[in-house]
């Protein structure tokens, strides 16, 4: 029985690994077939997927719904902008090296306050803190550029090995940056997979499912939630760090509550009960938003309607719906 279970589990892991490898292969060869604009969109999609992956460690695995993850994304973006302004070197590795500790420290600080509460109060606190960060970015304009934001020029990649200037610089940058982000994305996915399947991840899920029982087992709930918050904020912050050179500019918009809403939406769209949900959500959302923004000025309204409908009729998201459909088909066959 036990061996059977183990065998079936390892088989499903194998299947998943095969699917992931296939997916990766598609992502690797795609740039040969599409134009620059589509590649830009793909990069945005990968970045959104990283942000949502981080967010989902809290929502899907710890059961904490944050309405303020824009803060960590924005802190990542602004840290890069400050590095450019004060320290000089235009190297992506340098941005990441400075950016990640900065985001981790801020997530640890804010998380320490937020995880004292769960459910509603957690949501309120995260939203409130992100709005404070937003208002600071807006009001301390002599440092942050106010609503104009801060410019971030194209960085060099791989310790200055690849630099982009000249007439075809932009195109080359996008192509190289695509593979760069893809590599970071793969590292993030693997890392998150390891985290949620580690004893630490299992503990988070135990806390999510039954807090009281977990406490009786001697688990220090608040500390686990705090670390989950820290990891989650850092992943989302890394997405912000990667986003800024692509966008070329960071404005307070990425700190505003609507941006947190987009992150929540992304995870929900893909399905927050699945590991792959936020990844699919990030990709689909990026395209959805691009076309919604192009077709109507009131895309926020459209997103709201889709969000409410999703929660009402499709609470497990795209991935959840597909896997349910797959299960039904498999059962029908056998």
């Amino acid at each position, binding site marked *: 029985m036990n061996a059977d279970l183990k065998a079936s589990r390892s088989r499903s892991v194998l299947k998943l690994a095969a699917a992931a490898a296939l997916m990766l292969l598609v992502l690797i060869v795609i740039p040969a077939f599409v134009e620059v604009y589509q590649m830009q969109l793909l990069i945005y999609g990968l970045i959104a997927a990283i942000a949502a992956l981080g967010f989902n460690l809290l929502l899907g695995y710890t059961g904490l719904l944050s*309405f303020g993850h824009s803060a960590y994304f924005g802190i990542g973006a602004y840290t890069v902008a400050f590095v450019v302004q004060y320290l000089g070197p235009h190297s992506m590795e340098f941005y990441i090296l400075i950016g990640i500790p900065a985001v981790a420290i801020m997530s640890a600080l804010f998380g320490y306050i937020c995880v*004292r509460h769960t459910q509603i109060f957690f949501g309120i606190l995260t939203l*409130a803190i992100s*709005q404070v960060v937003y208002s600071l970015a807006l009001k301390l304009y002599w440092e942050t550029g106010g609503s104009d934001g801060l410019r971030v020029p194209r960085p060099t990649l791989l310790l200055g090995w690849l630099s982009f200037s000249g007439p075809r610089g932009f195109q080359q940058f996008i192509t190289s940056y695509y593979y760069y982000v893809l590599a970071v994305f793969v590292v993030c996915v693997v890392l998150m997979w390891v985290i949620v399947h580690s004893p630490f991840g299992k503990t988070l899920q135990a806390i999510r499912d039954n807090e009281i029982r977990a406490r009786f087992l001697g688990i220090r709930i608040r500390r686990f939630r705090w670390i989950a918050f820290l990891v989650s904020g850092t992943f989302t912050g890394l997405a912000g760090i990667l986003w800024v050179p692509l966008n070329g500019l960071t404005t307070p918009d990425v700190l505003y509550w609507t941006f947190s809403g987009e992150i*929540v939406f992304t995870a929900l769209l893909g399905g927050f009960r699945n590991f792959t949900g936020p990844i699919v959500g990030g990709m689909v959302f990026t395209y959805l938003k691009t076309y919604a923004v192009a077709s109507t000025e009131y895309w926020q309204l459209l997103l709201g*309607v889709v969000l409410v409908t999703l929660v009402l009729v499709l609470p497990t998201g795209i991935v959840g719906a597909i896997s349910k459909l797959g299960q039904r088909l498999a059962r029908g066959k056998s």
Partner: protein
Amino acid sequence: MAILTIQILNSLLYASVLFLIAAGLSLIFGVMRIVNLAHGSLYAVGAYVTAWLVGRGIALGVPLKWLFLLLPVGALSVALIGMVIEPLLLRPFYRRAEEYQLLVTFGLIQILEDMMRLIWGGTPLSADTLMDALPIIHVGGLFYPAYNLVVIGVGVIAAVVLWAGIYHTKFGVMLRATSQDRRMASALGLNVGLVYVSAFGIGCFMAGLGGAIVVPTQAAVLGMGIDALIIAFVVVVIGGLGSLKGALIGAVVVSFVRTAGIQFFPELELAVLYLIAALVLLVRPTGLFGTA
């Protein structure tokens, strides 16, 4: 001295609006155990509807005195919106995990905020005719609009009516019974669905009233709903969610701190408020009067 008096009056004005918003939020939570994230947006809808109605009234040549009647009309329209939202969108979620309730009301924010942009556009909508219709009084050599005193009065009346309604009427008993034990109340023959819809309607009415009375003093702008929601959260965090007394005291504390903040440290005014809220949370996690 006169400046101090005016600052105190300004704080009370702000406290009265804040109380209306926070008390509505608290009442809805107390009875239904649901946090309506779209509460601030409903307050903004109240402001927009009232300003729009007043503008229409002026265009049609309605006498000034009658225009004041449009304030409760604005509040009532928000109550009606609330009474549509509750059975349609919230009722399916009482049995489901709390995350879904938060997600639905979050989606509602997005919808309401963009609806306001769609209907009224990006330009601020003002109803200052009402404020100008009332005389300006002298406070120790300085001028102060009498309308602001009306706002303070409305806040006080609302607090008294709400308190009397909850603690001294039969409907109040029904509300409290439902909030304490929904199933027991239902077993004793209470129509819980009706209680919910009226509690939500009353909460929305308070938010709408807040928006309606504030709009003659400051124009309705996009984004005011979110700002109000955040400040209302600070109020309920300090006072305790689900408590009427908490909403009142939290509103007074927040508005005095904010007035002082704008006077002495304008950049950090919001940060100081959150610092206070964070301190209260660390010392008394349920707020000063909270039960949740």
